[in-house]
């Protein structure tokens, strides 16, 4: 059996290499067509050139950082439905959402903590990733057009959150 293994090895390696290179090409294609390039430190120079003028998003760390909070995903999910909102209304939604998951009453102190984080963390991060825009005075918060994949992701994230809660 030993000689058989030796005998097959070179061709096996060749096949693996071929598959790997195909895979790489496929991945690279996806990069170009779907991930729209980007200019942040981790995005490849080639991808960025290939993407041309399209809005950078999927290749940006700040996009993932913006989505790395359940509160920010809840905000986007709400905004998908409402498009335009205010800081006050979004504070109410986040506070109410907390009330429904905790089952406890949210006090004015809880609410102002949430509003503080909204103004100084959530909104700036979402705006930095070009997912929303808002007025400094908090009178308007507007969601930017989102790629269908992002919408799906938000939908799934909110669904998963409910499953975790009920489970």
């Amino acid at each position, binding site marked *: 059996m030993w000689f058989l293994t030796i005998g097959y090895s070179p061709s096996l390696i060749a096949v693996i290499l071929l598959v790997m290179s195909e895979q790489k090409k496929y991945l690279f294609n996806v990069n170009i067509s779907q991930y729209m390039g980007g200019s942040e430190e981790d995005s490849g120079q080639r991808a960025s050139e290939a993407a041309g003028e399209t809005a950078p998003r999927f290749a940006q760390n700040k996009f993932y950082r913006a989505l790395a909070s359940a509160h920010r995903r809840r905000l986007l*999910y709400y905004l998908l*439905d409402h498009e335009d909102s205010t800081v006050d*209304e979004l504070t*109410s*939604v986040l506070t109410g959402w907390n009330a429904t998951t905790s089952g406890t*009453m949210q006090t004015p102190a809880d*609410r102002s903590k949430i509003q503080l984080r909204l103004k100084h963390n959530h909104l700036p991060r979402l705006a930095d990733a070009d997912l929303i825009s808002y007025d400094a005075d908090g009178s308007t918060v507007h969601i930017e057009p989102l790629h269908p994949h992002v919408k799906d992701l938000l939908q799934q994230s909110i669904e998963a959150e409910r499953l975790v809660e009920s489970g």
Partner: protein
Amino acid sequence: MTFASLISELQERDYQVRVYRSGERGDIEVWLAHHSVSVESRPLPAGGPDPFLEIIVGGEVVGTIATEAIDGLLEPPIRRHPEHDKVTSGYQVLFEIFDQTVFSAMNRRELLAVSREIEDRAFRVGNGILRVSFQTLSTFESRTEVYRTLGAETTLDIHIYDVEDWTPPAITGITYHTDEAVSVNSYWVLAFDGGSDVTQACGLVAKEHSDEYTGFWTNDASMAETIVAEFNLP
């Protein structure tokens, strides 16, 4: 300050309930509307959070709670769970979220449910002053056993103020007041000062209008104190 002015002052506040929901009007929204509370609703996305409500006083949100947490607590049939702790947490929420909210068209069953929370708290603390008026001593008759337990198992100083239309049994710890009953005549009132735990202070003031009641309950120690003090006035 009379019981009447306590109610009317609270009634004049800029008070509103805002309900957030994605589906149909829920039971609590219907209940609030039937009890003359101004309710506004705002839409939530389907698949988003469960419905919740906000209490807004003078333009400020003073409390937010899941609708589910208070749904059914005041709708007949009012069933109190035999396990004290569970029941209490539900009623505590009701006291917190609707603190000093004036409801109209309340019925005796609803007032009894709220009264029981106050009696429960007094029982659990076990000391302090509890002042009660069920309007007539014959209404008190159905509560005699509860008060016998309160008198026997606690060191509460209990005062019952009612119009005399029945001779109540002598119970340790209970003082009956019938002479001064004029001022409490058409009011259903309970006030517990919290005893050694002021956070447990609470009260209820409701005025009867042709079989229905308009009034409020409170979780607030200073308001409970105001109600307690009111009993002493001629």
